[in-house]
């Protein structure tokens, strides 16, 4: 039978592990290059091990959703016939949309810059806590991903790369407390910094707005290029005006259930 360790041994072991924790934190905080490489390897290991442990549970948990999707696909197939009729109506509405597009000519330049090559990445881990609102994706420094690169889903900005490991990276989502995105708002292109804040409705707020500004309902929000942090013209979301001074920022894409995302990389 295995003998129980004496209490003093346990105390020494406990103190030693606490000391190791503090040393680890200090090295990680001090950002030394060889420690960074070790951390990258630890992060990669932890991410991929966790991914494979969680995978069977995720598959089981997603079964009801999969059945729902099959049912929806069947419904969609039936609805396709009806949609054909609607297409003719939409063609008429197309004229209206062309006029609406003219509103966005002022940000034409930004739209051009948006045509950067992208890298499809799989979401390995979607971990949220009171401290972080981030994703882990399967592309890292070996795939030329760098810190600060924007991450999009269906042409909507969802966050940016905050940490790069060898074969994985961390994406800090827009609603994260540490997220800072320079943006242009509305037709008059007011500049501001969009900051994640879990205490406000919508999860984000604007700071550093001009002294005089006025938002309209449904004003679109795009990224700007202040300090070269982010390429111009990526669609972020829209404003929903509530009262004279208050507004809600609405994203067209949810942050849950993300399976694949795209990382916009430099040419």
């Amino acid at each position, binding site marked *: *039978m295995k003998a*129980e360790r004496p209490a003093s041994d*346990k105390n020494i*072991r*406990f103190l030693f*592990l*606490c000391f*190791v*924790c*503090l*040393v*680890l*934190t200090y*090295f*990680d*905080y001090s950002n030394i290059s060889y420690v960074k490489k070790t*951390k990258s390897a*630890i*992060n990669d*290991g*932890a*991410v991929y*091990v*966790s991914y494979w*442990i*969680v995978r069977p*549970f*995720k598959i089981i*948990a*997603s079964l*009801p*959703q999969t059945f729902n999707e099959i049912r929806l696909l069947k419904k969609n197939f039936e609805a396709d016939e009806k949609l054909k009729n609607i297409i003719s109506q939409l063609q008429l509405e197309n004229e209206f949309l062309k006029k609406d597009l003219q509103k966005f000519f002022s940000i034409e330049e930004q739209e051009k810059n948006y045509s950067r090559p992208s890298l499809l990445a799989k979401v390995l*881990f*979607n*971990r*949220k*806590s*009171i*401290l*972080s609102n*981030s994703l*882990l994706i399967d592309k890292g420094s070996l795939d030329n991903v760098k810190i600060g690169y924007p991450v999009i889903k269906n042409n909507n900005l969802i966050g940016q790369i*905050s*940490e790069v490991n060898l074969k994985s990276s*961390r994406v*800090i989502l827009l609603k994260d*407390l*540490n997220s800072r995105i320079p943006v242009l708002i509305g037709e008059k292109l007011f500049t501001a910094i969009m900051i994640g804040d*879990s*205490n406000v409705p919508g999860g984000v707020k604007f700071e550093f707005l001009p002294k005089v500004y006025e938002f309209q309902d449904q004003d679109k929000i795009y990224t700007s290029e202040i300090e070269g942090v982010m390429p111009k013209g990526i669609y972020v979301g829209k404003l929903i005006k509530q009262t004279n001074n208050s507004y809600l920022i609405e994203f067209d894409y949810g942050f*849950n*259930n993300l399976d694949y995302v795209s990382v916009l990389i430099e040419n």
Partner: protein
Amino acid sequence: MAKVKKNYNDVLSILIILLIMLAPPISIEAFGNQQIYKYLNLEYIVIYFFFFYIFKYFRALPLFIFGVIVDSLVGNFLGISSIAFLILYKIAIYQNTIQVRSIFISEWLAFGLAILVVYIIELAMFYFTNIKTDMQAFAYNFIGSFLSYPIFWVILKYFFLRLERFGNDKDE
């Protein structure tokens, strides 16, 4: 020769803690959001429970490794969660050794005190490493974890007592 009783509770407890650490992506898949994690720290609850009831094969080293995994996944500086887990472990064991009578209320208050100490130490480490923190979120998380302890206590206690009884019946 007396047959040595096999006890799988310790292995099971390690698996439970590991799964709880990795639960957020599973819950996203099943329920679509993770708001519950803002108001509840399940990891602290189960770690405290298992150490308070001294699961003897479950020692400090697995906790240290679990902490490093959590830090890797959350994006903290390595070691912050490990030290929080280790301190919780030490407080739980200490509170277990000094308890005279087994009254649930006193255990509940002891749990509150233990996680309060851990939160304070964690906040101090975040402060020294310049990590931005939301005090309100910490307060909600503390209150939520404290208030929900009895629910998880009932579930875990019932589950593990049943397992032990089942093991004893088999041995007879």
